[in-house]
């Protein structure tokens, strides 16, 4: 489990970007979606999440704005930029290649 978590953590940026590809969203909802998609196996903490947002903002991949909820709670929404979309696609391609390589590497050695 811990090894899996480490591998996933290396893809935090891509995971967030993939979430924002669907729609603008705020931190907690994104985290909830991650938890849901991973069947409750994986969840980011606030610190990791916030660091990732900050990093992506600085590299111009996402922008943010304060939402105007009626409930009174102010939420910061994140929105993906064209650059973010480009990065997401690169990351996705990278992962596909990596995945296939790892698959090959692990599978060729496994039958023996």
């Amino acid at each position, binding site marked *: 489990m811990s090894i899996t978590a480490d591998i996933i953590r290396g893809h935090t940026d891509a995971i967030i970007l993939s979430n924002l590809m669907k729609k603008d969203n705020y931190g*907690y909802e994104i985290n909830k979606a991650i938890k849901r998609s991973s069947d409750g196996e994986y969840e980011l903490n*606030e610190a990791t999440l916030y660091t990732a947002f900050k990093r992506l903002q600085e590299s111009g991949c996402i922008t943010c704005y304060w939402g105007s909820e009626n409930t009174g709670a102010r939420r910061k929404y994140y929105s993906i930029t064209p650059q973010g979309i480009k990065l997401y696609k690169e990351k996705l391609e990278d992962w596909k290649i990596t995945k296939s390589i790892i698959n090959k590497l692990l599978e060729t050695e496994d039958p023996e």
Partner: protein
Amino acid sequence: MSDRIKKYIDEIFAKAESCPENDDMKQEILQNTLDKYNDLLAEGKTPEEAYTAAIASIGKLDGIIKKNTVTYTYTKEEVLRDRKKSAILLSVSVALYILSILPPILLDNTVFSETLAPALMFVIIAIATALIIYRAKTRLPKNARNTIVINGTAVPAPKMSTLEKVLITLGCVIGGLILCTVIAVSLFMTRVVNDGGNIAGFGIITDTYENANEYNVGDGEISEAISEIDIDWTDGEVNIVSYGGDTVSIQEGQVSDEDDMLRYRVANGKLSIKYRKSGTRFGLFSEPTNKTLFVKVPENIAKNLAKLSVETVSAQTNIAGIYCTNELSVETTSGKCILTDCSASDLDFDSVSGNLSFNGDVLSADVSTTSGDMVLDLTESIRELSSESVSGNLSLTIPQGRGFTVEFDTVSGDLDSTAAFVQKNKHRIYGDGTAKFDVESVSGDLNISLK
């Protein structure tokens, strides 16, 4: 319970710098955590469980929050001034710590040794400590000391040049010396008061003489033949008299410290007497007071002494009934000299402010003084006299039958005489004019009376 979450997050951000970035982050994290908490409650968790889980999901924010650190920007001059100031303060403090033992040393064996001395020591230590604390409190922040800003860019501060280091060190040494002197002088003054003003020396006194180890310590009786006496006495009194005994007797009364006792030695018929142990002394000290020297010389020796010389600083010299076939010499700084019924072929007197009173038989007299007065009561034997003075007066008493020639060379001194002179050039001649008196002065008067 949501208040508890808010409070928890407030605490995390308590030390954070107040800036839009941190405020936004706080707002966002608070909202996310509250959302999570509410969701957990909705899932059926107890408030306590939900709180614990929500808080746990925050993670470590230490690295993300902008800390309340002020960035220091100082100019090169400010950084260098700070260094210099701190170096001086530190040096002075260390110097003070070292000097703090001075009062106990200097005031040892005085009434202050258990009161003022330790008090001064602790005062000096307190000042040194205060300086060190002051230095620490007024220094530039540690991270600012090695970085300076030039045109908005932070660069490492320049290292101190060797010259600067040397200058600062020199400055500190000189400062320390001045401080040391001030302390020493104030202690000296204290001690002067303490000793009733009876201070003989402060600083270095060199009082060394040759063959010091051959000298006897303290009073003594000498039965050997003596033809010459040489006395070196600093303070107190020197008395040299002839008496009916057989031995030369030397006495100085009670002296407690052996170092302070007189020293005497006889070599080749010469008796030498010294004030105290030979050596160089450093520091602050008072001389033993009232050291009165009595040298009693048997009559047969007193009448045939070849030479007697006395040298003093402030001691009074009294000589009576001593006849020197050659020279009688007295040299003093401020001591009074009274020579009664003495004779010598040559009389030699030299003083700064000491007075001379002489009566007796001399062939030739050579006397000089700066401000001392000299009174000479002479006999027919006088052949020549040479006198020099600045403001000291010279009084001569000459037997009526003795003719003499006076040459008085003075700036403002007056000549007063009962003798009827014959003026010839610069000379005043009385009687046959045989004896030659050569008197020089700046403002000192010359008085010649006949008896």
